[in-house]
């Protein structure tokens, strides 16, 4: 088991290293280069050359590549020319907001997926199962940015129940419900497609488990439906769910970019969007890298969770 863990950890580290390399070459291969985005498209070639020299962009590739690694190792992610702040410090607060939103979303989506998936699997051939199935395909076909705008229109503009976006600023400080009131709409918007996708997958898993002999055997031993569902089916069906939750991390970020933009929620996705519009390279690069690393970590966590849940892996 320790060997398996070490191998997974090694794999994850290798993935991160490849990721860093990949991102480096993505920037390196960019036509124009960062200097234009700082100085504007109409900058004189001389000014561009000077800036390139200043940023070390005239060195050979391998030297730039090494510098890139050294900067990363020191935690130096560059300097944002549009925000006028070091990227690393810039990202901190945005990351905090995103993690807050994403944890709320993840908990809501997983909770909904488990409840709906169990119901769908248990009533696979009947009305509840079919209704849930229809809801799922609609749920994950709905673009978050569309749902977001409609939700703002209805709940914030028309009904004025909840704030349309942001995180509240100074006026909200001190109010105990404020962060939650601001989280409600973006979280619901982002959770909808995730819950739909997750519950569909989980529902199929549950349905397959219900077809197993051990479920019939458990019923034949006189166990009730609730005991079978929660004591037997849930655990076996949840095993692949752990992998899926790990794979959910990218979807969280993708949905996050759009949702945060719609709601003007100052998270990582929103920052990515702003820096893309303003062509703020260092920030853009850092966020792409950060999201990649978080994804690798998410998959690693899912792997480890799998190992814990599966007795066959654990004991072999």
């Amino acid at each position: 088991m320790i060997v398996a863990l070490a191998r997974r950890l090694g794999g994850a580290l290798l993935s991160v290293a490849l990721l860093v390399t990949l991102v480096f070459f993505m920037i390196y291969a960019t036509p124009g280069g960062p200097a234009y985005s700082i100085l504007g498209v109409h900058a004189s070639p001389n000014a561009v050359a000077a800036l390139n020299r200043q940023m070390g962009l005239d060195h050979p590739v391998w030297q730039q590549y090494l510098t890139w690694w050294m900067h990363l190792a020191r935690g130096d992610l560059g300097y944002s020319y549009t925000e006028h702040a070091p990227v690393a410090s810039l990202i901190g607060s945005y990351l905090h907001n995103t993690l807050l939103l994403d944890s709320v979303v993840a908990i809501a989506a997983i909770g909904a997926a488990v409840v709906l998936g169990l119901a769908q699997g248990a009533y696979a051939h009947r009305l509840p199962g079919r209704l849930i199935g229809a809801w799922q395909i609609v749920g994950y076909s709905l673009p978050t940015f569309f749902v977001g705008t409609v939700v703002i229109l209805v709940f914030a503009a028309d009904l004025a129940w909840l704030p349309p976006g942001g995180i509240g600023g100074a006026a909200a400080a001190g109010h105990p419900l404020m962060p939650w009131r601001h989280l409600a709409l973006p979280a619901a918007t982002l959770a909808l497609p995730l819950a739909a996708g997750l519950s569909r997958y989980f529902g199929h898993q549950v349905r397959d488990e219900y077809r197993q002999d051990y479920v019939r055997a458990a019923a034949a031993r006189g166990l009730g439906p609730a005991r079978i569902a929660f004591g037997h089916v849930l655990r076996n069906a949840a095993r692949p769910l752990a992998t899926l939750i790990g794979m959910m991390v990218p979807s969280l970020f993708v949905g996050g970019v759009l949702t945060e933009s719609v709601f003007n929620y100052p998270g990582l996705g929103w920052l990515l969007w702003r820096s893309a519009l303003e062509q703020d390279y260092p920030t853009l690069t850092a966020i792409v890298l950060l999201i990649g690393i978080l994804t690798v970590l998410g998959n690693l966590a899912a792997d480890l969770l799998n190992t814990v849940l599966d007795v066959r892996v654990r004991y072999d």
Partner: protein
Amino acid sequence: MNARGRIALAVRGLTVGLAREPGARALVDDLSFEVAEGEMLAFVGESGSGKSLTAAAIFGLLPFGVRRLAGSVRLHDTELTALSERALRARRGRDMGLVFQNPLTALNPSHSIQAQIAETYHVHKGGTRRAAKERTRALLAEVGLANTANGPETYPHQLSGGMRQRAMIATALACDPTLLIADEPTTALDVVVQAQILDLLARLRKERGLAVVLITHDLALAASCADRILVLYAGRAVEEGCAARFFKTPYHPYSRALRDALPPLHGQGARLAEISGLPPGPGALPRGCRFAPRCPNVQNDCRETEPAMRRTEPRFACLHPCLGAP
């Protein structure tokens, strides 16, 4: 036969069919039989003949879309078909146990053997964790898994096929049921282990006075260990009788064909007999006798009237039985 015990299970006129098309011909049609305490009855038939459906109907666990259309199932003094789902659930596992063909899939892979036995015991009898643990240990020892009984928690994948089937039997016996239905319990096992499991079933039957229904497609196996044999064809009982008599003089042409298809134990036999054609599917049952299209004794009336089961010994359902020398 003469020293027969109390009747444990009595099934009368059991008919099972599709819920959506109650008018269609049944998957199990008008089946009646009894099993006494300490007796083993073997159901013999090809796949699709309704053996497993009968077991499911007795337990009230028919698959979705399949329904018991008629008939009664009595376990001792209780009419099971009259019970509510909740009351029936309390009987499953407590008064009757079910053993499956493949113990690897019929045991939950992520629960230990011990936990699965203890759970059954706990659900029906309550009591302390300790009592359930004691009970589990005793049961495992009884089915011949002494090492597992005294050892740590064991998961199904850690056991061999035969040991798994022993564990499966232990889960079915957790609450000392009076009836055990074993659905192809040895089909997934190799021959040596098969014999061990059958020995175990025979021993349990004798020691506990257990009524056993053995479901199998293997006539030789049925003949070697059952007291009585009931042959099913396309959902209907075609012949029933004491195993020795049955093996010597089967009356129904299908039973005889089945017996003649067995290789002889001694000597160089002639070419084995075979039954031409395939059994009919539930959607394509012929008029009259269901075996008629494949029957060597077939006559015109066979295609018109469905023969009824004789009420007295020898019991068979055929208009033109094999009466000559075997």
